[in-house]
């Protein structure tokens, strides 16, 4: 991870941290989806819950959740109005929020059954013309692979999956149950639910990494705070430096496929 902060700001961060630590009465308000594994749920079983605990512990803060499904208008409703201070995960280039340096990077993956021996990874694989391909639906849009398939004239191969709440694993189950031949799924979700099917599912990184003219399948992930809240952002940077390997350990346990963080990452995508 790149350390880009001059010493002086580190000192400032440290003093804020020290002050807060001494005060003992600090709340860390985290917005999280009430029912969206593997990310979070109210039973606090998701990896965002684990990471929030790491952050709160490090900051000696009392962790408070604002449970809220993330839909359109979410940032203005919850972060801008200070109902919560922190989102554990957002794309590093997410403009509505102030983001930290990325702490992990993942990608959309092809999920297939091992016994099917498809070995597809490329969107340009001619085999796709004969496959039923599951794609997640995010409220108003398909995920980027859906757009990429449509652009290749493969829209008739797409099977859309609504993906909220307890149905989160439906797209992975559909591969395992042969309802679809393959699925293209955001890595953290695919990795987590594929674990439940033992070794029977194959995950291949989607290629190309970026579909011209500007459709990325790989995203760096940061923590996000309200614009202007540089104090908290800087504190979180320090937490990420101190606890980076612990957090990556959490992601690993949840089966999240992690790519190497590019040295220059932070504002790309």
């Amino acid at each position: 991870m790149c350390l880009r902060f001059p010493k002086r700001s580190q000192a400032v961060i440290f003093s804020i941290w020290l002050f807060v630590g001494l005060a003992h009465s600090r709340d860390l308000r985290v917005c999280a989806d009430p029912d969206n594994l593997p990310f979070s749920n109210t039973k606090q079983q998701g990896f965002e819950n684990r990471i929030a605990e790491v952050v709160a512990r490090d900051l000696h803060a009392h962790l408070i959740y604002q449970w809220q499904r993330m839909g359109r208008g979410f940032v203005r409703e919850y972060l801008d109005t200070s109902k919560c201070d922190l989102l554990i995960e957002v794309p590093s280039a997410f403009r509505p929020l102030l983001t930290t340096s990325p702490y992990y990077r993942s990608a959309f993956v092809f999920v297939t059954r091992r016994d099917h021996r498809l070995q597809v990874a490329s969107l340009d694989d001619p085999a796709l013309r004969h496959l039923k391909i599951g794609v997640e639906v995010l409220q108003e849009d398909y995920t980027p692979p859906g757009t990429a398939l449509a652009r290749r004239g493969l829209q008739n191969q797409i099977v859309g999956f609504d993906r909220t709440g307890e149905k989160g694993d439906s797209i992975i189950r559909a591969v395992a149950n042969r309802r679809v031949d393959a699925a293209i799924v955001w890595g953290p979700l695919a990795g987590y639910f594929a674990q439940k099917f033992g070794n029977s599912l194959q995950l291949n990184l989607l290629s190309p990494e970026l579909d011209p003219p500007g459709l990325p399948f790989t995203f760096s992930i940061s923590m996000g705070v309200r614009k202007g809240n540089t104090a908290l952002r800087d504190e979180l940077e320090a937490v990420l430096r101190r606890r980076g390997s612990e957090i990556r350990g959490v992601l690993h346990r949840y089966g999240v496929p992690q790519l190497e963080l590019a040295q220059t990452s932070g504002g790309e995508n």
Partner: protein
Amino acid sequence: MRHSAYRDVWSSKTQHNPRAKEFVAFSIVSVLFLALPLSSHSQTNARGMLLPQTESNYQIRPYEGKLDPDDGQWLRPAKDYASTRYSSLDQINAGNVQNLKLAFTFSTGLTKGHEAAPLVVNNTMYIVTPWPNKLYALDLTKPGAPMKWVYLPMPTPAAQGVACCDVVNRGASYFDGKIYYNTLDNQTVCVDANSGKELWRTRVGDINKGESMTMAPLVAKGRVLVGVSGGEFGIRGWLKALDAKSGKLAWTAYTAGPDKDVLIGPRFKPFYAQDRGQDLGVKSWPPDAWKIGGGGVWGWISYDPDLNLIYYGTANPGPWDADARPGDNKFTAGIFARDADTGEAIWYYQFSPHDLYDYDAVNETILLDLPIKGQSRKVLIRPERNGYVYLMDRTTGEVLSADPFAPITTTRGVDLKTGLLQYVEEKKPTRGKALREICPAAPGAKDWQPSAFSPKTGLLYIPHQHLCMDEETVSVNYIAGTPYVGANVVMYDAPGGYGGEFTAWDPVNGKVVWSIPDHFPVWSGAVATAGNVVFYGTMDGWFKAVDAITGKQLWQFKTGSGIIGQPISYKGPDDKQYIAVLSGVGGWAGAIVAGGLDPRDKGAALGFVGATQDLPKFTNQGGMLYVFTLP
């Protein structure tokens, strides 16, 4: 107020435009457009933009058809089954309206967008609020109209996250001693109008599927008709009929899917060839895409008791990325006529086949009998989001005319032979390509805000937008743990430099009689009265009375917050005429105030902030009922 100003505005603009030469090519194209057998009442400016025509010498032609008798009450948002929003009360007229005074007020205590129409029945006024969808009953027989009771349905807070465009509610309906309305979390409730006691509640949708409810139900033939919102959330749209007594589901008519789900059977006879065929709700989509194809039913329903048909429109198809859903995407963005008892589809017409611009077709349907080419015909009028006012034969679904009432660049008219909307190729959005001057913008030339018809003038009074948009390059977005890339939409005022208009429309000739520009989109409803006064409100909080014949402003009152509610007119227990409206800015257009958005972020609220950036300077949030009468 403005008479045939479009052409003037444009000729002066293009003269000074340094890029004027580029437009020569467009004007040649536009000459070709005029040669097509399209509806005739439009003109095209130098940039190929379709503009409405103004009727310079309008002769008042009172309506000769029949309207429901008016008892001075207001039982449903649209007033009558024909959806005229016309009050036959005439105490308030052009001569005395300037004396109009505040009679009483009532605060809802809520800060979200207030889009509902109050109801008045048996000397009680009923108000439904935005989430948490409280129902207030006010006693009109007592001074100051004190509260009789409040009913709290307690919807789940999680529903707020799935409402796309503020947590609004468009009102309730009264029938047989009961008040019916929908909660944001998909419950239809039935409340005793006297006591405020809940008689039944039925859960009709699931927020986990992205469904929510904002529309006002219509009660017809003992059935409560309710529809779903959430086209932005991958839902599969439907209209449901519940038994008014028990709340039991009678039938469900899906917007897309196999014929049996859409309630299409042997009686289904669409007028145009493209709407006929088996299982078009499946075949006009990629496999399975209809299951998440949107097509909500969140607007208005009208009812013709003689034909025993209900009429309603369907919302835009999903996903927004149109490349991912090749085909006409039936039966989204169109209008259904259905049997009021069984729900069977009788005919359907698609306003925007394979919609590219979020042009939902959920607007109000006004049912009238008008003289068309010397012959009285049973028609319906639809001021559509795509920019045209459609005049249709409501027995068959034939389009009789479709004339622009706002600037249009995305299409060049409706072919009246085939019924097909003529898309403009170079305005079709493609992922990754920046597009300029898409008019109307995504909320359309007109959104849900209902118009009013006056039988005295024969005119339709249309509150609407005057907006265009640019689709910018893609930006990184994020929902439910998953990053993706979306289009960045920025809206701005259409040529002329104003964001909204209040237009008097001649439905027979398809022309503008007069129109009043407003700085912001006119997002309120309208009410026409027999005193030849029409009322509407603006987003910066002016409640206005204008002359129904000339459009001259006669009176205005500044309310505490912007107005996006629907005004009504009723007779009080003292036999006086009252005008009531909810103020309380919000909704999609007012999200910048209701949601406290950052005006520097023009792409917020799906791009609407670009067009309403300065709204916070003019108004603040807060729901309040205002009721006016003559001293």
